[in-house]
């Protein structure tokens, strides 16, 4: 990370980059955006196919509780990694396990978990807020570019590497498992194992993105780019590529635009607003194609 930052400083001193790049935190945030964007973008289509959009929303809200628990247990307030990841992963696996054991409709079950996560998180984080800074609530909910550390970037990089390997070798099988589970099973694919791996990856990516995008909005970034891409694409190839493109551009410009305009907008809000704009653009494209 150090060499990227010094390289950006150097470029700034030579006058190639605008003044805002003199801040190291911006470089950190941009690098993490360049990782988060493609990660969420490539997972989005699968999430939409499997109808798991609100699942990741629930896991994102679980992050609230995770952070509060971390502070309670004495982890540093800015990076309570252990409790955050542990709580969200257990939360996600538990939700998925209950789903496979009951006949409760999935959306209702996710609704229960989602509300519970917010309630518990709100209670805990306001309880611990006195001990630390009240602004921590705002940062956890809506994301902040000021808080990205090197460790966050390394975690993102690790998840990206795992996801690339999984998609490269097993992506087709995972997709077939979600499209037609019975066909996949007759072909000897361990459908349930893929299900759990997928849920685990979603949980990890969601938690790793919370710092920049925020607990409330991280689910939206899995859903909106993929939904917009789905409107514009004629095949699965375009579906995935557009989703990655929209997600990455939203992340990068959601960080750059408020900085450039000196607007006090949380990064998560700006990113999701840009993604929503792309959704409206996609609707327009579809309409235009239908007229032609």
């Amino acid at each position, binding site marked *: 990370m150090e060499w990227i930052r010094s390289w950006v400083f150097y470029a700034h001193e030579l006058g190639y980059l605008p003044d805002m790049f003199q801040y190291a935190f911006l470089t950190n945030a941009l690098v993490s955006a360049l990782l988060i964007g493609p990660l969420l973008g490539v997972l989005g289509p699968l999430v939409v*196919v499997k109808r798991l959009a609100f699942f990741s929303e629930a896991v994102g809200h679980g992050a609230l509780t995770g952070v509060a628990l971390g502070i309670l247990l004495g982890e540093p307030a800015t990076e309570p990694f252990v409790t955050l990841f542990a709580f969200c992963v257990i939360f996600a696996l538990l939700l998925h396990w209950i789903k496979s054991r009951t006949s409760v409709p999935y959306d209702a079950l996710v609704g229960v978990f989602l509300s519970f996560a917010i309630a518990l998180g709100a209670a805990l984080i306001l309880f611990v807020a006195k001990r630390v800074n009240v602004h921590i609530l705002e940062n956890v909910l809506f994301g902040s570019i000021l808080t990205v550390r090197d460790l966050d970037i390394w975690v993102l990089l690790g998840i990206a590497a795992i996801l690339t390997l999984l*998609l*490269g*070798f*097993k*992506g*087709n*099988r995972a*997709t*077939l498992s979600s*499209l*037609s589970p*019975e*066909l996949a*099973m*007759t*072909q*000897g694919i361990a459908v349930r194992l893929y299900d759990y791996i997928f849920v685990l990856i979603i949980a990890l990516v969601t938690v790793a993105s919370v710092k920049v995008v925020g607990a409330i909005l991280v689910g939206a970034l899995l859903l909106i780019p993929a939904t917009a891409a*789905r409107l514009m*694409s*004629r*095949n*699965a*190839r*375009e*579906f*995935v*590529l557009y989703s990655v493109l929209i997600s990455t551009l939203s992340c990068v410009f959601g960080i750059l635009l408020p900085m450039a305009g000196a607007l006090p907008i949380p990064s998560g809000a700006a990113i999701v607003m840009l993604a929503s704009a792309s959704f409206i653009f996609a609707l327009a494209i579809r309409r235009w194609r239908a007229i032609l």
Partner: protein
Amino acid sequence: MSVSLEVQKLRLALNRVELIAPMDAWFAPGQMHVLMGPNGAGKSSLLKCLLGLLPFQGKIYRHWQAGAPRTTAYVPQQIAFEATLPLTIQEYLLMQMSSRPFFLRPSASMLTLVEQLLERVGLEGKAQLRLGQLSGGERQRLLFAQALRRPCALWCLDEPMTGLDELGQAHFTQLLQELRDAGHTLIVIHHDQQWIHTYADQVWEIAGGLVGHSVLRPALKPCVPERLNVMQRVGG
């Protein structure tokens, strides 16, 4: 090179309702077995048990003959694809034929394979159609195509002729015969009496269990000795 299926005291109950009463059966290798019976008799459920897709009581064994590919082809009754999902026929097949991620550009040799497969089922030139755009008959053809993409010793087909036009039915009847003549074991759910009488080797009547069995054409003696078979337990 084929496979036989041994069913011992198979019983299926879902939510305490018995769908299939305890039954024994022996599906001889290299034959066309037809499961027939009224709607709701448990034919599809039986087929799913044979495939290991449903949890059942009792035992099912597959006896693979030496040299037979230990793979199963399944042509389900219908698959509900979301109409708005942007996924083409070509991508759907490539996803199952190669491990190269479906969102990357496919290799030319793979594309040729897909085109040949589509020709075999009468879908030539339709590779770029989305799954949601297909008619019932075209979907059926696609399901055949995905089953045909690799050699399989055991074929399980759930009402494969549904939605097919007359030409399509004749085409796939011929295809099924070719598979049988190549020594593969076929288990087909079908309703048409005339068709069953003409093409089936063995008929299994299902109505909440096995209620009748008739052999129209007895199996030939297997050319491979029994002791070379590999026994594999299904699901359970």
